[in-house]
């Protein structure tokens, strides 16, 4: 009897969590898409705000961290960019596009190792 109840609780929890996860991902996707839109118009600060929000909504969404890293890079916040790239690669280590972005970033960052972080 107990095992049946336990199984039902687990099942209900799993079924109800799935839409929650799906919601978080779709909300994060909407924020990422909006961020891309505004970044293409040159509104990088707004884009960063959206991508930060996306990463907050779904901390397992590698694209949000990748885009955030690019935004930080564009703003000269190189330490933050590195952290975001590393997080993106931690989530999706085989993503060739994130890896390529990170390599290009490192090239600049290594070249200017002594440059100070922009506040």
């Amino acid at each position: 009897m107990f095992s049946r109840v336990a199984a039902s609780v687990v099942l209900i929890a799993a079924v109800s969590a799935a839409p929650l996860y799906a919601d978080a991902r779709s909300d994060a996707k909407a924020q990422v898409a909006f961020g891309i839109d505004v970044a293409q118009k040159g509104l990088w600060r707004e884009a960063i705000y959206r991508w930060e929000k996306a990463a907050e909504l779904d901390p397992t969404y590698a694209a949000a961290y990748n885009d955030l890293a690019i935004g930080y890079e564009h703003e000269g916040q190189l330490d933050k960019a590195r952290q975001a790239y590393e997080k993106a690669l931690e989530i999706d280590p085989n993503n060739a596009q994130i890896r390529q972005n990170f390599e290009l970033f490192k090239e600049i960052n290594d070249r200017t190792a002594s440059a100070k972080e922009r506040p």
Partner: protein
Amino acid sequence: MTGLLPPKNVRRLLLAGVASVCAAATLACGPSYFEIPIETPIQPKLDVSAFQRVLIAGFVAGGSEDVDANQETVRLLRSQLRSKSSLRVIDADVMQLQEIAQEQSKGAPETGEEPPASKESSGATPTQVSSVTPSPEHATQPLPAKIKEEKDLEPYERLFANTSYWKRIGEEYQNPLIVTGTVLFMPNSRSGFVSRDVEQIDGYGRRRVVPVRQYLERKGFILRPKFVFIDGRSGATIYSESYREEVLYNSQTNTPALSSYFELMDRLVPNFLSALSSQKIRGTRVLLK
């Protein structure tokens, strides 16, 4: 008159349906990545906010006699700073530092008064730098009248450590940031095997590119500048960085020394400028959905 479609037509209809659903889905979702151009701002290596003016004083120069490396370096850096820096460039006669160092060593030596707190560059491009503070042996070494190689420049290091001299220069020009250093521009030749791609046409008239190893005698130049940044208020060195660039041409090519000098300086100037002013590095990244 309606009837059942033959099974072949049903399959075709199904396939067409699936294809149109896929096409619609692709159109609705759009691409999943976007290339975007970015400009990464890089902060200057030096905080020059305390200075409004910069004096490119002069350089201890040597090597090839075909190029006056002191004169040319001063001229080039002044013109670059005029257009790419917010600092006002002081127009002054180019200092003949080699002669000044000779005179200083003849008279009462002022070397090693206050060892300057120099901050050395650790960038990827700069080569390993030696300290601006002269070693005891360099402080007493005679200054060679002709500078032909790197070791001839070493005794001149004591000129940059002479804080009272640079402080006096600073006072004369109302405490600017002073840029000085050494420049060695010397001929270089090297021979050996070089691999290069050669286009060949085979028996069927097809073109193909084949790597070919060839023994070549090449000649060119090496440029080794060291930029020393001095605080005109105190005469102390605040930063220094050294670079090394070389170019080699086919021995039959007759390239004038001056054009090689500019070719090599062209590679270094962005690094020099990045010490004083912020730079923007252009690139492309991929945004993901």
